[in-house]
């Protein structure tokens, strides 16, 4: 008993109280900024070095849906036009808004339709499906329930059964062997329901995009409601993305 009390005191107050204005480590790579200067003539070093074709040069654009947040393009640019800041607000409801240009200052998902906000605004239960995820995204999604992030305080929780869920969260590039289980799981969720893609793998396939073992048809057949980039997405990117989406 005394040990338990001692442990509780050591626990202190580790929670991130203000999830919208937290301070991440200086080196954390979140939203990039692109300086408003022209590229040197003929230079495409940033685009050429990117292993996942996330970057286009002259003018520089970075697709955060494809980006794995390695610093290769930042290192490659001779003019130092690209800089990854530790701003973790990078979720979006529209795929095209994930493309960062020199004009991009912030990325925020628009509020969902009124019906979705009325249904899920105060309580959102999600079923996660790992479809080839390497366990990186899964670890970060599990971290959402720990004492630091405690997503449950906002009424957002992961549930065991798709029957109890209001939507699914997909991680991984969607392997051939998981494409059918994913479809069955989605069909088992009662409507209205939402689809959230978490992580570069599910949004654009990461380095597995062109593997013959990957089958991404599900994404063409269904409307995606929220994109949460990152490799893996930071827990705070996930929480703030969903909170903005449901209008909180």
């Amino acid at each position, binding site marked *: 008993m005394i*040990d*338990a009390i*001692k*442990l*509780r005191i*050591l*626990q202190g107050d*580790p929670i991130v109280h203000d999830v919208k204005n937290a301070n*991440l*480590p*200086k*080196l*954390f*790579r979140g939203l990039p900024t692109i300086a408003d200067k022209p590229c040197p003539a003929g230079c495409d070093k940033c685009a050429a*070095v*990117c*292993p*996942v074709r996330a970057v286009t040069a002259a003018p520089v654009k970075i697709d955060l849906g494809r980006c*794995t*947040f*390695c*610093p*290769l393009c930042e290192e490659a640019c001779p003019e130092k036009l690209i800089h*990854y800041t530790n701003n973790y607000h990078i979720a979006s409801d529209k795929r095209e808004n994930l493309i960062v240009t020199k004009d991009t200052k912030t990325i925020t998902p628009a509020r969902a339709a009124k019906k979705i906000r009325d249904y899920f605004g105060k309580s959102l239960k999600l079923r*996660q*499906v*790992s*479809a*080839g*995820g*390497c*366990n*990186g*995204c*899964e*670890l*970060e999604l*599990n*971290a959402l329930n*720990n*004492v*630091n992030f405690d997503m449950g305080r906002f009424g957002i929780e*992961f549930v*065991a*059964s798709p029957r109890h869920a209001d939507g699914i969260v997909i991680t991984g590039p969607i*392997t*051939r*062997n*998981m494409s059918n*289980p994913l479809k069955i*799981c989605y069909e088992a969720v009662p409507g209205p329901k939402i689809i959230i893609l978490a992580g570069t793998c599910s949004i654009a396939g*990461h*380095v*597995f995009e062109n*593997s*013959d*073992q*990957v089958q991404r048809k599900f994404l063409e057949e269904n409307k995606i409601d929220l994109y949460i980039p990152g*490799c*893996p997405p930071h827990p705070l990117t996930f929480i703030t993305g969903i909170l903005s989406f449901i209008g909180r």
Partner: protein
Amino acid sequence: MSSLQIQNNQCFRLEEIIFSDKNNFLKIVSEHLANGFRMIGLFPPDKSKPGKIIAVLANSGSSELCITGGEFPRDKLEFESWAVSFPQTNYFECELAENYGYIPLNHPWLRPVRKQNMIAGGKAYQFYKLEGDEVHEVAVGPIHAGVIEPGHFRFQCHGELVYNLEINLGYQHRGVEALFLEADRNRRIMLAESIAGDTVIGHICTHCNIIESLSNTPISLRAQVIRSIAEELERTAMHLAGLGGAANDIGLALAASSYGRLRTLVINSLADLSGSRFGRGLFVYGGVRFDFDSENINLIIKKLHTVRNDVKVINDFLFSSTGALVRFEKTGAVSQDSALKIGLVGLAARSCGIELDTRINYPYGAYRYFPVSQITLSTGDVFARSRLRALEIDESLRFIFEQLENLPEGETKTAVGDAEPDSGVVAITEGWRGEVVHIAVTDEQGRIAQYKIKDPSFNNWYGLSLALRKTEISDFPLCNKSFDLSYAGHDL
């Protein structure tokens, strides 16, 4: 014995491998297996020339590592299975059959490894089935109740007792090994970091060792030490996560949340160093991308002091709780004899009293100069696997503090040249789960022609199956958590 003796991370020429005819090859491998060697690889070194395969064998007791080759008649890719006498080769033979069409004759149990419900030759696979009164089957997955990776489990039960647990995987198969052959260097690094997201450092470190050995690149001591610190941070973080998971599975919320809090501190230390909570982006060929400076080192030391102080209190709380011990002790026990027979590796093997730690048996990188201690326990149950993780956290933290206080000076990056043509390397590192093995072979132009990866989970899933025998089905979550295996690492 006609085999090529090599060292961990040593580049060898392909022509040095001795290829015997099929019968001799089978005999040589059998002799090695009888003399305490374990199989760590069985595959054709060159896909374009069918009929040639190599076996990579390791004897951790004597720190020997060797390769032997066999030549099969091209029209008859069959061989007498070793698995009848040496069950540890069972899964390697299944993999060889599935990937390359070699048929192991008289194999005790030919199963699909990654393909769904098919075995070699395109035949439908029949799950193991128990029949009789009071017999029932429980099938779960591929999608499980929590936020975890997919896999299909079939329990054949008699009353409350599990007679057999069949583990059917492959749902996560992304074709990583094939992708390695097409990828350029930057893409390969990303691939290696994504083999198993919980063992980012373990896999990327092994992959970098492969490329650096193939190109004879010496790595600065400072870079080696930073790599080892990252490895130990990953080990500490995942052990904390695993202990938290075990505490959660027995309903001890206070311990579970405390372990979770400390894990956050450890992975945030990795983020202070590399910008990623999992250490992605830290490794480059020839060294590391990020270095310690006076600012991040202080942040990290401060966090790790808290971890070292608090983890002691939590461990005392967990391992003196009668409720926890009742659930941990004698649950899911694997005997040392079984563990040796099926070739368990890593912490699952060490908890059965087997001395098996790559950092000690096949030292690499900074571990050659700054050794760590071999820790083993003997009971092979959930208690041993959990307690061992607690002890390994202490040892990892000791290592990290020792290194942070005496960081060697020097550069952190070395230029990497071209890979040697017609060569090969076997690289083994000790990931937090156990040995991570990568084996690469280059063609005549120095391009990677074959890349094989063995995650420790490949060996250990069968251990979980054994642990469940004659155990109550309700103990499955706890046993599963105590092994803490990777699906993606197995399925690649």
